[in-house]
């Protein structure tokens, strides 16, 4: 396991990010329960340390792609939670103007090139962005593809890894291994030793990390991204974690025992980070304040989303295409 000097500032910042993700998703889950949010919502509760730990080292010039479970990466990359919440509510001031919802959340202004409704679809897009960086000699820019363990069984996973290695592209592949391919345990449908070995088999160095240990993710992420920025080519990070909620927010996950989930809650990355920071002498009141600030921010986000306007009907015709744009029913 990677060791790093305890960097209180960095870890506190990641802690704040994790709380903002958690508070956002809990607020979104409640809004869904209250019937205020209509579409599918996939929660990353329990997986926040990976988004927070990796994105801490990215700038707005770096790009990421993510999955249907992408709120965390989007917040960690710097998007406004208020604009994201409005997006979940389908409102005009949503980050995508209310046209995408939770599954298609994106904020290009901070280099977040999109969540995706299709498993593994973000990998080729991230690889393509990295290809363009290399083509234009934009040294130092990197692309990060976040995806789940279910994605490793799709063809574009293999294609994208091979491509990145062949063209020596500045890409970090981050496999968030939460153990589930939707509602099926990934190991029951996956042959071989898993994500890292698949990456290594085509020559991409792979590292494995406890994805619920934000300090470890921060440390390893720093090293891997530095390597990529130096021109070392693609790197692969296999992060073990656990999806504390169901596949979607309305999935009660009856396919796994309650005791398993209970036990996994004890491994909650936020609780672990709270303990770590306290061990290093950070005052609990300060940590509680971070949680409180995050919850207040998201309560306000929900309130502003509820008050926001729906997209105007003419929005339906805009942004389909320039040539042959639709004008009416």
């Amino acid at each position, binding site marked *: 396991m990677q060791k790093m000097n305890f960097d209180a500032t960095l870890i506190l910042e990641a802690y704040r990010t994790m709380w903002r993700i958690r508070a956002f998703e809990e607020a979104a889950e409640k809004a869904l329960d209250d019937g205020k949010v209509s579409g599918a919502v996939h929660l990353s509760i329990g997986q926040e340390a990976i988004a927070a730990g990796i994105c801490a080292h990215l700038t707005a010039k770096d790009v990421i792609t993510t999955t249907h479970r992408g709120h965390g990466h989007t917040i960690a990359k710097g998007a406004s939670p208020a604009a994201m919440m409005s997006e979940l509510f389908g409102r005009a001031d949503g980050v995508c103007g209310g046209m995408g919802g939770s599954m298609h959340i994106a*904020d290009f202004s901070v280099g977040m090139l999109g969540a995706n409704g299709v498993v593994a679809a973000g990998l080729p897009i991230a690889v*393509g962005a990295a290809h363009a960086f290399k083509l234009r000699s934009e040294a130092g820019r990197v692309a990060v593809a976040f995806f789940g363990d279910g994605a490793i069984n799709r063809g574009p996973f293999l294609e994208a890894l091979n*491509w990145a290695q062949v063209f020596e592209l500045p890409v970090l592949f981050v496999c968030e291994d939460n153990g589930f391919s939707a509602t099926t345990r990934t190991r029951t449908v996956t042959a071989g030793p898993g994500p890292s070995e698949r990456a290594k088999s085509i020559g991409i160095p792979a590292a494995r990390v406890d994805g619920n240990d934000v300090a470890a993710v921060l440390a390893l992420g720093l090293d891997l991204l530095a390597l990529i920025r130096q021109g070392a080519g693609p790197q692969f990070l296999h992060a073990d974690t656990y999806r504390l909620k169901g596949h979607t927010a309305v999935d009660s996950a009856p396919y796994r025992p309650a005791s398993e989930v209970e036990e996994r809650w004890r491994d909650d990355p936020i609780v672990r980070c709270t303990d770590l920071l306290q061990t290093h002498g950070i005052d609990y009141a300060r940590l509680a304040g971070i949680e409180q600030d995050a919850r207040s921010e998201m309560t306000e986000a929900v309130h502003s989303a509820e008050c926001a306007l729906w997209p105007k009907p003419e929005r339906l015709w805009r942004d389909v295409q320039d*040539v*042959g744009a639709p004008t009416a029913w």
Partner: protein
Amino acid sequence: MVSEITYLEASRLALAEEMRRDPDVWALGEDLGQGGVFGQYAGLAEEFGSGRIADTPISEATIMGAAVGAALVGTRPVIEMRFADFALCAVDELVNQAAKNRFMFGSQGRVPLVVRQPSGMWRSSAAQHSQSLEAWYAHIPGLVVVCPATPADNYGLLKSAIRCDDPVVYMEHKGLWQTTGPVSEASDPIPLGKARMVREGRDITLVTWSAMVRAAQDAAVLLEAQAGPSVEIIDLRTIYPWDRKTVFASARRTGRVLVVHEAVAVAGFGAEIIATVAEELNVRVSRFGAPRVPVPYAPPLEEMIRITPEKIAGAAWRLMEERRETSSTNHNKQSE
């Protein structure tokens, strides 16, 4: 300077000129460094280098998906799919990613890519290398679909496709690569969505595109020799958006519209044109396309489903003679 060049050379010239004009234009696909499977890229790697004429693995999904990512960060990729049939390995990336990006992310980005999909029947290429699938993509909001028929159009439309900010499905016909015609170097692009009046006539409007334009021209001559109807021919050039104005104006003059395409008639793009015309104008309409069978290998059977000038002339005669009540004799009607 106007010179007589092939449809294939015209596309190479257009791409080279666009790559010289705009450093963000680049091409990627299998075997491009070797000039591409038909030679459409010959010499380009030498001029532009292996970065901008990129040889890729046989990974259609990632060719298309990477182009989406590369387009989102500001480049203008021209993607080679080798055969339209292979682009089916990249349908998610084209239909779910490229076509939807601008809309579903609320106009944050544009995906200015061109995906070249060589199409159509060509020398017994059989079921997996012969299809004409333009109607599939015309169905998808967000996509522009182009089917050039002549060297001049392959030059001018490819330029427009490359400059277009929408994802463009660009379907060159394999049977046309070696056909020749006049092309002016460094000339203006041809606007997308605008049809070409190939031939004026009085009695029947023949709407077609791609390789069927030549077949239609030959059919018109044949009909003339048979003292048949005077045929007006419209080359649609862009399948979506299709030029309704030109088609409607012609239909009003002739009173009859026959759409001819090499693709399977069932749910082909002819159905869309005919339905639209029939909804708005009181004219006789018919469509003529291939039967709903995969393209066979054996040359005599391949010939059976080829849309020839003789068959087009036959379809035109049927439309001339047909009364609405007897339209059940329509050639394309499936047997019950």
